[in-house]
């Protein structure tokens, strides 16, 4: 039965209430009806914000239990904590696009647990399943507020084409991207669509032994680390073991990271140690995991010539109160790791403090650094407290200069 008036003629308040009561598949289909409706949704955005979106065309028991081989799976998580009563079936929404002989079947599913599931199906005649996925994704992204918190690709050949079509030339803003079971070329295809300025973290993980029917390769990400997105990200994690992931220097800028090399040498530890000593960050941490290390004894000797410890502590040359910790751990799980972190000198034990190696720079460098900092913060001198380092094992000439400087500065002593 036709109406005399369109839904679009509805006053603002009723329209907003109607949209509140429409579920996600209904809004998705309403968006496909006409320009005017898309404009309305874009202006008023009745959908809750998406915090996480991910898709895949792999069969993977960890993600979804899909029996049919040719499909695209999309998972969306809405930010509904403030409006939970409107979404009693939970914030997670799953969509499946199945290839059929004469079209495509789309299944929307929302479930709190295995017993409570809400499912809707729709058959699209003569529609290609990748096309249908691409069109829906485009619509979903068009009405979202950016940046989105988390974007995940579970990999799978042929899917990036659908993503390109949805994205067109648009640049996507997300805080975090995760790639699972993806090859470098797939990662690069997706990464180009993401804004380097908003991207904070990149995670590349590989859980399955077989990717796309091929045994898991020892991956490289040397192209990925050249991208602007990588250089802008402050947190990176990857569990892909590889003989040559990327040069270790490419990880030095990270605020937080973990990486799994197939094999490491002395150079890996040297580079990361220098990156930690020269950084200003108090929260920097990095976990260098590996399976093989022919230079293990050489590394230990480099870190501690006495070969008595598994935890090595160093003062930062330009911040003597900040300690860089390097800890060796054998997890007995097939891999070992060096864990790099930063801590305040107050948080180490007295014996550890006494055994700190001498600072490896001259006093002039320390003074220059301090003077620069003090010039920057000249208005805050009263609040600034800088501890003098203990004087047991340090280079005496260096520390006496520092102490004299502090005394003059804070106490007016000559």
């Amino acid at each position, binding site marked *: *039965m*036709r*109406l*005399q*008036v*369109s*839904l*679009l003629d*509805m*006053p603002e*308040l*009723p329209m907003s*209430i*109607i*949209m*509140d*009561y*429409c*579920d996600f*598949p*209904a809004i998705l*289909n*309403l968006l*496909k*009806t*006409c*320009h*005017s*409706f898309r404009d309305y949704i874009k202006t008023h955005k009745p959908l809750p914000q998406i915090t996480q979106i991910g898709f895949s065309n792999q069969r993977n028991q960890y993600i979804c239990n899909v029996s049919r081989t040719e499909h695209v799976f999309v998972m969306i998580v809405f930010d509904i904590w403030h*409006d939970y*009563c*409107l979404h*009693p079936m939970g914030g997670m929404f799953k969509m499946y696009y199945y290839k059929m002989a004469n079209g495509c079947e789309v299944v929307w599913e929302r479930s709190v647990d295995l017993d409570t599931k809400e499912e*809707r199906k*729709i058959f*699209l005649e003569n529609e290609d399943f990748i096309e249908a996925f691409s069109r829906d994704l485009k619509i979903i992204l068009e009405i979202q507020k950016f940046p989105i918190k988390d974007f995940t690709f579970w990999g799978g050949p042929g899917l990036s084409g659908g993503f390109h079509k949805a994205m067109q030339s648009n640049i996507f803003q997300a805080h975090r991207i995760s790639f699972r079971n993806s090859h470098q070329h797939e990662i690069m295809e997706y990464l180009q669509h993401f804004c380097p300025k908003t991207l904070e973290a990149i995670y590349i993980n590989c859980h399955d032994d077989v990717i796309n029917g091929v045994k898991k390769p020892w991956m490289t990400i040397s192209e990925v680390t050249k991208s602007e997105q990588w250089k802008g990200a402050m947190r990176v994690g990857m569990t892909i073991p590889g003989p040559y992931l990327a040069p270790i220097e490419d990880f030095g800028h990270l605020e937080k990271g973990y990486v799994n090399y197939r094999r490491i040498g002395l150079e890996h530890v040297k580079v990361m140690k220098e990156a930690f000593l020269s950084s200003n960050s108090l929260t920097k941490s990095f976990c260098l995991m590996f399976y093989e290390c022919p230079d293990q004894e050489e590394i230990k000797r480099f870190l501690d010539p006495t070969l008595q410890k598994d935890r090595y502590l160093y003062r930062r040359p330009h911040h003597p109160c900040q300690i860089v910790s390097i800890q060796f751990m054998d997890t007995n799980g097939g891999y070992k790791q060096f864990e790099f972190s930063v801590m305040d000198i107050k948080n180490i034990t007295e014996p550890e403090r006494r055994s700190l190696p001498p600072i490896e720079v001259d006093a002039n460098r320390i003074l220059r650094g301090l003077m620069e900092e003090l010039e920057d913060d000249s208005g805050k001198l009263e609040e600034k407290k800088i501890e003098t380092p203990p004087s047991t094992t340090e280079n005496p000439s260096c520390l006496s200069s520092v102490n004299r400087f502090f005394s003059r500065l804070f106490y007016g002593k000559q």
Partner: protein
Amino acid sequence: MSVENAPVVDVDEAAIPVEKKMYYRFESNDKKEFRVSELAIQQSETLNRLVEAMGYTSEDVENKPAIAIENIDGKTLKLVFQWCEHHKGEAIPVDDGSVPKIVEIPEFDAKLMDIDNGLLFKLIWAADYLNIVQLLNVSCKKVANMAQGKTPAQLRRVYLLPSDEEDEAAKRAAQEAQDPRAREVEEEFEERKRQGGNSFF
């Protein structure tokens, strides 16, 4: 002027104070008259304020002309007052963010709203205009439920939405109506393009 008997008033003598037993008279834009109890009127914030401001006595209600509601026709107003009489005395939901927004459509409301979509839309307009919160909620919920499981083509039919092409054509027509010269300019531009001109100017 005809008097509609539709709102059958069931007054609970014990529960309602004597001064609340007044029935107001309202008139729709097609001159149909309704008698509505004061308690039922409280469901509508707009009407409640109106009668309070008027300060009618029982004699005034009978002797003065019916209160005209000019934006709503008799068919719609009959549904509105039927709903108000049925739900009179019920608490009016307040949207303070803490009250769950889950709305169940009661059996009476479902039957009342078993009407064609055009009338349902008018009922929503009336509920919005008269500020009847719960009627607005249930009627909007009913309209939202109509979208479930429908394809875009079915949704266009149900909600009378245009297709993309119709939408664009309507926008063009509206633009042209605003500026008759626009069409001529566009045709001129197309003609120059056909002739191979690189620049319009």
